[in-house]
């Protein structure tokens, strides 16, 4: 009840409401631009949240995520170019509807399905997170170490489709995490004599470099984005009869989005395509799919918006970011001195409940802004790419300098951008690196603390029941992923 009242009290906080509306607006505009993913739109704002109140900052970032998922569907429907990866499934029927002169109807279905999905996801987030965090409160240092290993194994296995590549990327992340002071003795490690590295590499710099700078380095060599959308389209919300027809695909999207959202490494794109496929399977009109079916828009849009909330379940309860966007939100927590995980509910409950309240406002803001944003979105999509890249980079470099007024950090972000570009060339997934970076301290400090408790006996990780269980799950997942990879290679060779 107290948590509910705390959430409600945030609805009355002016700055939280402003942050939710501003975040959604930024998210929709960013999501509508084909080169800007939700995580990049969030990363661009991350440096500007440094001076804000933590709740306002986190609501701003989470609202960008909410807005970007709807924003991505606008060019997907109007110009057959998904603004975000998770809007790819929306292209199939959304663009067909647009070709039939039903673009406004498709956009209305996308908006309403996103709203329903977002609110359902929020309900799951509120109900599941605290219970999971309470279980995690009983964790010993050994269990925390094993939790870190589990998190790394899940992401290494799932992100990018290759376990070995995931392990390599996670190792690089861990290596970056070890730069600076040793957590036990305070000895300096890997600082190369630089005073600027004594405090280590801040996750915010790695995230801005890996997501924003890398993307711009890639985008500058790619052809211009598709242009020429219909800015004059009028958005049309579904009527009662249509709403009844859309209930089933939206429910399918909600269930699949919940499962995929809480699974680290899965994400909105997989959820959207699975929801599309299942909605077609269970539809009374499967023959309409691919030819402009409203259900083909509703299911993926509901699924990817559910994920915006459910992806936060493992982050808030266990401290494990399951997606790029969740990782950026984690960066938002860290720059305010907050560590997501079970202790967050003890140390800063007002921030968590504030985030819940802010997410609710963000979903309402998405509906209100979505009704009027179509024209500005298409105007932005039609801007020449060179100017957009120039302004995005100006914003990135200004934002990075604003964090600590450090020229060194501007250079460091460029170096990390180059690392991200190299990883893109070598097809190494980024998420395991981010996870290695943010879990590095947790894994190392709890490993060494456990050994201090056990007098150097490694058996503590197996005698502690929770630790043993987590390690067993990590092992099963590792073997399963390895077996799946081996199996698919064998199949490809036959």
């Amino acid at each position, binding site marked *: 009840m107290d948590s509910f009242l705390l959430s409600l009290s945030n609805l009355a906080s002016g700055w939280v409401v402003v942050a939710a509306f501003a975040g959604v607006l930024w998210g929709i505009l960013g999501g509508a631009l084909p080169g800007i993913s939700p995580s990049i739109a969030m990363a661009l704002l991350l440096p500007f949240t440094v001076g804000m109140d933590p709740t306002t900052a986190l609501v701003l970032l989470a609202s960008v995520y909410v807005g970007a998922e709807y924003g991505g569907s606008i060019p997907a429907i109007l110009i057959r170019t998904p603004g975000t990866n998770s809007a790819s499934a929306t292209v199939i029927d959304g663009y067909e509807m647009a070709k039939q002169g039903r673009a406004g109807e498709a956009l209305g279905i996308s908006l309403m399905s996103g709203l329903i999905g977002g609110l359902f996801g929020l309900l799951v987030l509120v109900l599941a997170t605290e219970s999971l965090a309470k279980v995690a409160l009983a964790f010993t240092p050994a269990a925390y170490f094993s939790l870190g290993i589990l998190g790394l194994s899940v992401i290494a296995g799932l992100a990018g489709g290759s376990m070995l590549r995931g392990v390599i990327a996670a190792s690089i992340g861990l290596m970056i995490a*070890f730069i600076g002071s040793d957590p036990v003795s305070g000895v300096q490690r890997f600082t190369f004599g630089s005073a600027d590295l004594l405090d280590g590499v801040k996750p915010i710099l790695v995230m801005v470099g890996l997501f924003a700078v890398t993307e711009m380095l890639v985008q500058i060599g790619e052809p211009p984005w598709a242009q020429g959308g219909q800015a004059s389209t009028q958005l049309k919300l579904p009527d009662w009869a249509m709403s009844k027809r859309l209930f089933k695909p939206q429910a399918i999207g909600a269930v699949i989005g919940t499962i995929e959202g809480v699974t680290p490494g899965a994400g909105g794109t997989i959820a959207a395509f699975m929801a599309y496929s299942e909605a077609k399977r269970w539809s009374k009109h499967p023959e309409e799919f691919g030819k402009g079916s409203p259900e083909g828009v509703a299911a993926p849009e509901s699924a990817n918006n559910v994920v915006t909330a459910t992806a936060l379940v493992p982050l808030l309860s266990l401290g494990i970011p399951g997606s790029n966007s969740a990782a950026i939100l984690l960066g938002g927590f860290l720059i305010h001195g907050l560590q997501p995980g079970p202790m967050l509910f003890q140390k800063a409950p007002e921030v968590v409940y504030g985030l819940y309240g802010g997410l609710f406002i963000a979903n309402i803001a998405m509906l209100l802004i979505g009704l009027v944003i179509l024209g500005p979105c298409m105007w932005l999509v039609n801007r020449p790419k*060179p*100017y957009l890249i120039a302004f995005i980079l*100006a914003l990135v470099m200004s934002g990075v300098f604003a964090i600590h007024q450090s020229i060194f950090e501007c250079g460091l972000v460029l170096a990390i951008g180059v690392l991200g570009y190299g990883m893109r060339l070598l097809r190494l997934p980024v998420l395991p690196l981010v996870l290695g970076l943010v879990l590095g301290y947790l894994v190392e400090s709890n490993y060494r603390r456990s*050994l201090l408790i056990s007098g150097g006996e490694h058996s503590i990780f197996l005698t502690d029941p929770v630790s043993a269980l987590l390690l067993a799950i990590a092992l099963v997942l590792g073997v399963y992923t390895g077996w799946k990879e081996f199996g698919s290679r064998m199949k490809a060779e036959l």
Partner: protein
Amino acid sequence: MNDITVDRITGALGVVLASVYVLYARSIEDSMLADAVGAAGVPTGVGVMLALASLALLLKTLRSAADDLTDEMPAPGMDASGVSRRPHAMAAGLLAILAVYVALLPVLGYVPSIGLLIGAVAWFAGARQLLSVTACMVLAGPLLWLMFDWALEIRLPVGLWPQWLGR
């Protein structure tokens, strides 16, 4: 680049990185406060993990190497591994512009540097309307400065102008 070439490069780079990292980690001196694992313990373990994963990736490529040894002539504008050179050249050029911006920031200050950055990037990315590019250069700097310095109260570098102007 095909998968095997990418795997080979990744594996080789991983082994080199892991070797250098482990050697460096072993040279870390522990303090009197160190525990049994020591400051170098976990980093060494991670280095070994990286080396093993990279070696496994390299070994994986050996199995299918024979199928991959086809002598294809690279297409114009492509390198031997089939990758277009232009995107990399563009990325390198953009990086150079950003590096120059970082170098100029403490010298010229924020407003001229960010204006130059915007103009240079827009031009480099293909904008050819001189008037528009110049307008963006001239207007963006003061607008961004207002946003940061006035609205967000973040102090931005003024460069060496006070020194040059004798203040």
